[in-house]
């Protein structure tokens, strides 16, 4: 193992490597938080959109009703995502 020993047995090099690993773990945690945030936002937006669509009064035949709902969804879903995302970011800032 002589000559190939990592960090050359130097405590400073070992400390640097340890700090880098600690940073990687912290970044992993932040990344996981971001993914969790995105998933929660989308799930809540889907629920909000579904609840809003249930309130939409549609008229006409089945095809016409489907088109009306799709149009409503096109507007409601992005708005729900934006609303939930803004609310959650506000919540995160307050932590």
């Amino acid at each position, binding site marked *: 193992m002589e000559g190939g020993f990592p960090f050359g047995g130097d405590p400073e090099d070992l400390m640097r490597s340890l*700090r880098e690993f600690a940073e990687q773990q912290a970044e992993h945690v932040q990344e996981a938080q971001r993914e969790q945030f995105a998933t929660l936002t989308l799930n809540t937006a889907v629920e909000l959109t579904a609840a809003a669509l249930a309130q939409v009064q549609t008229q006409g035949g089945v095809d016409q009703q489907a088109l009306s709902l799709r149009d409503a969804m096109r507007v409601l879903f992005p708005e729900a995502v934006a609303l939930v995302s803004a609310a959650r970011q506000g919540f995160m800032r307050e932590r």
Partner: protein
Amino acid sequence: MALADDLERVSASAEPFADPNERMSGILAAQPLGASPVYLCSFESETGTAWLALDDEARPLTDASLVHEAASLAALVEVVEELAGVELREPRLATNAYLDEIGSRLEGGLAAAVEQAFPAAEAVAEQVVERHKTPLA
């Protein structure tokens, strides 16, 4: 995900310990034999790195020997992972069992690696204790 959750929880508790000129830069988890997990949080500033060891309840540790032991174990694991060519994609807890497991992959054996790494790991642990943000006894 359990360890990642613990790291997130402890990180959030450690952040308020950062001085105005510091930022919390990283976190390590180590569990010496017979002890609960210890979370070593690093804080970077222009003057260097400071450390804060927290227990599983995210409370600062006061036991210098436990902090020393946890830091030394984290450093030994770092060396042995490097020697064994371990590539991590997920956070991991440094334990003696994990050290044994990755050490078994070494051609020269774990004992030889630990013998060589021990002085550097001890020096690192001393630095962590010396630069600890709260008093240790």
